[in-house]
């Protein structure tokens, strides 16, 4: 439920009004409306966003929706309140209704027009009755869009549809009413064109709605309530800065804050993309929506509502999407020059017939015939059909393509930026190689000892160690030292051993060679964990150092080679330290490494590449990647990541396999070239018939053949996409 007029802010008695503004064509339109609204009596502030077509007005009670509306209308635009604004589902339903009516009426219309045996006396009048609602009710959107576009002097696919169908309808009606000798009616052409194009639009609307809303996903990430110290649960909106709340193990942190009591490991991977939970204690900062894994915490809120990190990231995504230029639709671009050419030919044939001493009727027949034949009914199918088959094939390969604009972007990208953690790497911890042990100690025994103790712990590093070896024996005594490690007794075949696994400060002595090994491990970006045993005098001595790190996916290097084949320059982008990033970068063969980038700055790095003249694809998985995904010309989310990353992206690759990203790009490019072929042939058959129409020989058979052939071509050409195979054989389930 949207609160339009009731969303009162504290103090001042200001009311917030959100409306959608229609008809804006440039950024100046938005600033102009904003200026006018701000000057309105009783309005405190106004903000108009061109990209989202939304206006937010803060006003006092003397101003109402009607005042805002009349101000906007006086400037030549219109507003609709959120309740009236087209929601994607309504738009889809709207198209469906218009399509069903068009289809139901067009079916008999085509039959009586094309099948001689079904024609009866006066069938043309029935055709008129069937075609009229299709052309003027079902096709109304095309006509109104055409009028709007003409005011700005532009022509689109709508112009072509509107012009062709209205010409066909008008001409047929003139022929019928005036009973012109030798005249033919073209009602079925108009009906079929509108029906097919509505079907195409409905396909598109349905695909778009499914892509969903990044901000909704973002909002759903956080906790809904917070538990205060006295045990009462309050909704998140009731939480204020300075209030203290409790976060129990397994719960999400309600909002950004500082720990005032307790000790725990917080899994912030969804925000930072880092696989290692962060140890937090009194005084440490925690981020809202992150997961508290082990201990109980009391947190004092430091930011709420729009000030939280999650909200700030949301804002970044919104801004990036807003600045993302809308790619003009392919068919519209073609129509942009096709329509004026057709109108010119039509005009020329009119003049040509008149100056060669023919009757006005012959001249008009030829001119109108050009308009009728030029409207290709396959045009409406060319793009959606290609997208449908392409996205269908993509789904089988684990690639989700959101809409047609994406395809064009894949063609032009020349640089690809890869997030490191979880994209190029596994995104989870694993023990790397054999531990480094002091002389006399067996590294594998040390690992087995560590595995026994760590099997008791929940920590992801512990899980990695536990998974790396069989335990050395039963654990008898066990103690967890928050943030430092674990100690316990292990019953091994050679007797009970008091052992410890953890950080440096858990041990009483660490030999120099282990210190050196740890420094080397940490320099490479890994985490070093020590294993030790208790000596007879009770001192805890380290025996071995275990390297735990995020491992590079097996398929990453191969995928990066594929990107190079596709002509892409590959950049690795990460928040990790330079050494670790360089190591991974070298291993997989990227062209460039950008390291130590704060989550919020990732979008800036993408923008910098764009400003350097690149068309950038970004691959990522975490919330921290979302703004960069939205900023990029082509955002590709890998499916192992968060919903938000998926929502902010254009393409989603369901598997975590980076080779699927190369497939996604290849498939998209292939789909685009198929669509271009479709568009070419959709027009070509009709273009071929234009001269015939201009010279007065528009035989209905030729018109029908042109329409039929172009539609058949578009369908069969699109089906070729089903045979697409990527860089690897399709996965069998």
């Amino acid at each position: 439920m949207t609160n339009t007029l009731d969303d009162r802010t504290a103090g001042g008695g200001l009311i917030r009004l959100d409306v959608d503004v229609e008809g804006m064509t440039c950024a100046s339109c938005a600033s102009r409306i904003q200026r006018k609204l701000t000057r309105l009596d009783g309005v405190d502030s106004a903000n108009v966003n061109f990209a989202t077509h939304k206006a937010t007005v803060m006003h006092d009670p003397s101003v109402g929706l009607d005042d805002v509306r009349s101000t906007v209308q006086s400037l030549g635009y219109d507003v609709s309140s959120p309740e009236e604004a087209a929601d994607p589902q309504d738009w889809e339903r709207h198209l469906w209704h218009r399509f069903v009516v068009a289809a139901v009426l067009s079916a008999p219309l085509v039959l009586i027009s094309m099948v001689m045996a079904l024609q009866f006396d006066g069938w043309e009048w029935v055709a008129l009755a069937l075609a009229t609602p299709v052309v003027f009710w079902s096709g109304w959107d095309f006509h109104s869009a055409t009028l709007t576009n003409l005011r700005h002097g532009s022509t689109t696919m709508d112009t072509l549809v509107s012009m062709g169908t209205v010409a066909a309808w008008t001409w047929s009606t003139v022929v019928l009413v005036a009973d012109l000798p030798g005249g033919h009616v073209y009602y079925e052409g108009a009906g079929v064109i509108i029906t097919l194009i509505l079907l195409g639009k409905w396909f598109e609307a349905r695909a778009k709605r499914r892509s969903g809303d990044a901000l909704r996903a973002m909002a759903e990430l956080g906790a809904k309530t917070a538990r205060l110290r006295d045990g009462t649960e309050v909704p998140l909106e009731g939480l204020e800065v300075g209030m203290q709340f409790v976060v129990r193990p397994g719960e999400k942190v309600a909002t950004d804050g500082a720990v005032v009591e307790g000790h725990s490991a917080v899994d912030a991977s969804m925000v930072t993309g880092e696989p290692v939970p962060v140890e937090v204690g009194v005084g440490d900062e925690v981020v809202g929506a992150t997961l508290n894994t082990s201990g109980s915490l009391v947190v004092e809120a430091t930011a709420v509502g729009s000030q939280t990190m999650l909200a700030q990231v949301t804002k970044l995504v919104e801004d990036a999407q807003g600045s993302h230029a809308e790619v003009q639709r392919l068919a519209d671009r073609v129509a942009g020059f096709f329509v004026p050419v057709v109108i010119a030919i039509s005009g020329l044939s009119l003049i040509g017939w008149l100056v060669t001493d023919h009757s006005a009727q012959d001249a008009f027949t030829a001119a109108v015939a050009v308009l009728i034949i030029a409207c290709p009914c396959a045009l409406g199918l060319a793009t959606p059909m290609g997208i449908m088959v392409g996205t269908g094939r993509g789904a089988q390969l684990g690639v989700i393509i959101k809409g047609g604009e994406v395809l064009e972007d894949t063609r032009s990208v020349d640089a690809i930026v890869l997030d490191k953690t979880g994209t190029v790497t596994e995104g989870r911890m694993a023990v790397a190689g054999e531990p480094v042990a002091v002389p006399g100690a067996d590294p594998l025994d040390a690992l087995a000892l560590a595995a026994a103790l760590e099997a008791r712990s929940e920590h992801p590093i512990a899980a990695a160690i536990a998974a790396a070896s069989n335990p050395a024996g039963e654990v008898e005594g066990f103690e967890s030292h928050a943030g430092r490690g674990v100690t316990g007794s292990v019953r091994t075949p050679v007797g009970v051993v008091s052992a410890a696994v953890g950080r440096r400060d858990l041990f009483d002595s660490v030999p120099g060679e282990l210190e050196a090994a740890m420094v080397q491990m940490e320099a490479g970006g890994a985490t070093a964990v020590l294993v030790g045993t208790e000596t007879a005098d009770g001192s805890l001595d380290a025996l071995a150092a275990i390297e735990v790190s995020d491992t590079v996916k097996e398929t990453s290097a191969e995928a990066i080679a594929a990107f190079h084949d596709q002509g892409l320059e590959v950049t690795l982008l990460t928040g990790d330290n330079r050494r670790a990033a360089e190591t991974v970068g070298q291993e997989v063969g990227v062209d460039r490494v950008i390291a130590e980038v704060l989550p919020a700055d990732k979008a800036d790095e993408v923008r910098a590449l764009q400003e350097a003249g690149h068309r950038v694809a970004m691959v990522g998985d975490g919330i921290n990647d979302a703004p960069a995904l939205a900023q990029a010309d082509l955002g590709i989310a890998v499916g192992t990541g968060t919903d938000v990353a998926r929502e902010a992206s254009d393409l989603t690759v369901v598997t975590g396999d980076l080779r699927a990203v190369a497939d996604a790009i290849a498939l998209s490019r292939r789909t685009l070239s198929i669509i271009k072929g479709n568009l070419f042939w959709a027009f070509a058959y009709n273009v071929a018939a234009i001269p015939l129409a201009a010279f007065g020989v528009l035989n209905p058979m030729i018109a029908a053949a042109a329409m039929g052939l172009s539609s058949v071509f578009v369908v069969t050409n699109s089906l070729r996409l089903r045979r697409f195979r990527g860089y690897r054989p399709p996965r069998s389930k």
Partner: protein
Amino acid sequence: MTMTITHTYEVPDISCGHCVAAIEGEVGPLAGVESVSVDLDDKLVTVLGGDDVAIRAAIDEAGYDIAG
């Protein structure tokens, strides 16, 4: 006999047909204005006749800033 003065203003924000219509709509009806032409490419507003102060106010009223 009064002389008709041509005023030229540079308005950088003009970027679409809407903008052109808005400025023509505000400046056109002013007293003494014989014609208004808005050049979308060069972002210039050329007004034949009228009073400079009134024209500047009208362009501002339309929602645009004059450069310089």
